[in-house]
């Protein structure tokens, strides 16, 4: 009996863990959000993380989740566990951080001549 309860409990905890992890993991990212933006001028940019990276053939997480030290990109280190604003600090003015995001997305789209580049293509109402 005791064993059964233990098994049930373990299954339950595992199930909850799976749900929580999937819900909060990168797998399910649907839009770009950053808690540093207190007042939102526009809805967060639509971004289906996995679909995008598959289509864009991006395997290296560090392409976006990069880490810089002393102005140089650290090759083997990535920063998926952090928000962009942890390094690209906002300090009251959102313009620099917005621009960082834009140049990361739009800049690459311009370079590759693929993907959305106009305001309303990403910030969908």
């Amino acid at each position, binding site marked *: 009996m005791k064993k059964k309860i233990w098994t049930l409990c373990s299954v339950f905890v595992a199930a909850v863990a799976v749900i929580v992890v999937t819900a909060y993991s990168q797998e399910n990212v649907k839009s770009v959000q950053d808690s540093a933006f207190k007042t939102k*001028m*526009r809805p967060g940019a639509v971004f289906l993380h996995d679909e995008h990276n598959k289509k864009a053939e991006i395997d290296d997480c560090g392409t976006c989740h990069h880490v810089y030290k002393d102005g140089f990109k650290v090759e083997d280190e990535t920063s998926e566990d952090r928000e962009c604003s942890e390094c690209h600090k906002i300090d009251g003015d959102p313009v*620099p951080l*917005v621009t960082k995001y834009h*140049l990361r997305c739009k*800049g690459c789209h*311009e370079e590759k001549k693929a993907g959305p*580049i*106009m305001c*309303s293509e990403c910030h969908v109402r």
Partner: protein
Amino acid sequence: MHDIYNFVSGPLVWVSFVLFIGGCIYRLISMAALAKKKDPVVYDYMNLRYALRSIFHWIIPFRSENMKRHPVFTIVTFAFHICLILVPLFLFAHIILIKESWNISWWFLSDSTADVMTLIVVGSCIYFLVRRIVQPEVKFLTSPSDYLILAIVAAPFITGFWTYHQFAGHKVMGIIHILSGEIMLVAIPFTRLSHMIFFAFTRGYMGSEFGAIRHVKDW
């Protein structure tokens, strides 16, 4: 979409700014030369003190007799011009584009404020249109080009509002928005919109003549 967007937001911006700034300089120089040739007294009578005095009275609402007589027109005109100049210069989306291109930025309006100000511009244009059609003395002075100029001014604001709110066809409208802004910039030196550059001189001369010669107020 990439090619057309990059074209209207790249080379065409440069073309329009060159024509706008170059056109303004050309118009100022050629007008100065024309005045020297045809109306040299303008130079003799121009007086900085009286010019500034007149400009000062005419850029403050209800400071002139004419403005007091037309309160609605005065309010609409001032609201229109203030919004017309502030919205494009301090719109968040414009600031971001400039920051992306040249890494410079400045203070911006909240989007909701800019939205209201845009509606003020469009509403004012409708008022000016109706006024041209309805008011006999204005109708008499109106030529078809005046309607075109009104459309040129209203277009960037209507298309901008449309694009921002993402009404049907907003992507194409976004392109038209950029184009219409460029058309308006180029139109400034070469149409009646040139009052932007000539205002200070026409008002200044009026002030000078009325102040220094006739010794009366011109407001």
